[in-house]
């Protein structure tokens, strides 16, 4: 296989195994030493590095924006979009005035393979795998749903106590190193202003809460920003999104990522559910990777720009 020589020749229009994504991250860092660095925030259960790309133009501990993809490993279009986002940031800085203004004052952190053990497993053992790969004592079933393992309504309705369930919340909050590593990093950084966790599929933009019907205190602002973001998204290819709080738009889900981040004080906490609504589900054709990433980027820019212009 001809390895790409640089991130310009890297093929963003196809799905890559984990080693190629790691190589891509290292290439991007090497090509952009003044802006991109790689932080290893921890290790997965099977010992893979949890790599976070930091995009920064200087300063110390600037207000920051977090984006993660691939926490559910089978949602391949998200990790693929994350690679495209990484390249977009370095390409557009200095060209796009909105992104340039954001990066002159804020940092962006991007974790592309948030569940590496699961992602490896989807390529080599079971394409349908969603959870982590840590064994559950006393059960034949492996793995915890990393989007039910956070300390926000943990173990409540909207997650399963059965290790064999796809929404198993785990033995306790933050039991999964893939989750605990982000928790520790976000707490130690202490200056995140937006947190965006990207899933697929079903085309939705969601904000907290998922574990309770109590509206968040910033509901009006989050709702109108979500509307703006999905309007920008639809402007490219007409892809239609629904939006709203998790519990009112889809279902009750406890122990979710953005419920925890919002409760940490990170106001602009959102979850995306990318394409598809057609007939492919998780098996989205690679031809749709770049269009999905392009349209999602418009929504991300709307959220990042709003965060930049509304410091708190």
């Amino acid at each position, binding site marked *: 296989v001809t390895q790409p020589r640089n991130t310009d020749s890297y093929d963003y229009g196809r799905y890559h195994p984990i080693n190629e994504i790691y190589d891509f991250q290292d290439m991007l860092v090497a090509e952009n030493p003044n802006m991109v660095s790689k932080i290893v925030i921890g290790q997965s259960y099977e010992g893979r590095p949890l790599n976070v790309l930091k995009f920064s133009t200087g300063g110390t501990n600037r207000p920051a924006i977090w984006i993660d993809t691939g926490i559910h490993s089978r949602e391949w279009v998200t990790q693929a979009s994350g690679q495209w986002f990484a390249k977009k940031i370095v390409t557009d800085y200095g060209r796009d005035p909105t992104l340039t203004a954001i990066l002159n004052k804020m940092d962006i952190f991007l974790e592309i393979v948030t569940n590496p053990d699961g992602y490896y497993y989807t390529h080599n*053992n079971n*394409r*349908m795998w969603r959870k982590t790969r840590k064994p559950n004592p006393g059960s034949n079933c492996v793995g915890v749903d990393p989007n039910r393992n956070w300390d926000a309504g943990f173990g409540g309705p909207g997650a399963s106590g059965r290790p064999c369930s796809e929404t198993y919340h785990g033995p306790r909050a933050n039991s999964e190193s893939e989750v605990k590593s982000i928790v520790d990093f976000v707490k130690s950084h202490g200056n995140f202003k937006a947190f965006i966790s990207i899933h697929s599929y079903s085309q939705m933009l969601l904000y907290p809460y998922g574990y309770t019907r109590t509206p968040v205190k910033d509901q009006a602002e989050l709702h109108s920003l979500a509307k703006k973001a999905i309007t920008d998204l639809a402007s490219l290819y007409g892809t239609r999104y629904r939006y709203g709080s998790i519990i009112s*738009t889809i279902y009750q889900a406890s122990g979710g990522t953005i419920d925890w981040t919002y409760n940490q004080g990170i106001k602009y906490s959102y979850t995306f559910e990318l394409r598809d609504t057609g007939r492919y*589900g*998780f098996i989205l054709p*690679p031809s749709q990777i770049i269009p999905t990433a392009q349209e999602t980027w418009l929504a991300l820019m709307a959220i990042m720009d709003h965060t930049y212009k509304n410091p708190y």
Partner: protein
Amino acid sequence: KETFEGHQVLRIVPKDDVQLSLIKDLEDMIEFELDFWRGVTDAVTPVDIRVPFHSLQTVKIYLETQGIEYSTMIEDLQTMLDDEQEEMESAAR
């Protein structure tokens, strides 16, 4: 490597809350080994379920006897996965 010959993904559109709860009941029938790709949300929003071959007939009879409309979103999951794998390998080459 786990394969999915004969697995189908059914797209179910519940008409009302009664049908919604009947579909939710399916979630608890763990012997069917159903994989909810899109969970139960509200009436009119599709629910997509991957159904292993060994459960297909039983699940379809269950839906039909309850008058719950469904369509087959993916006829054979393994065929799609083979195509995806082939596409990855040819793109890599």
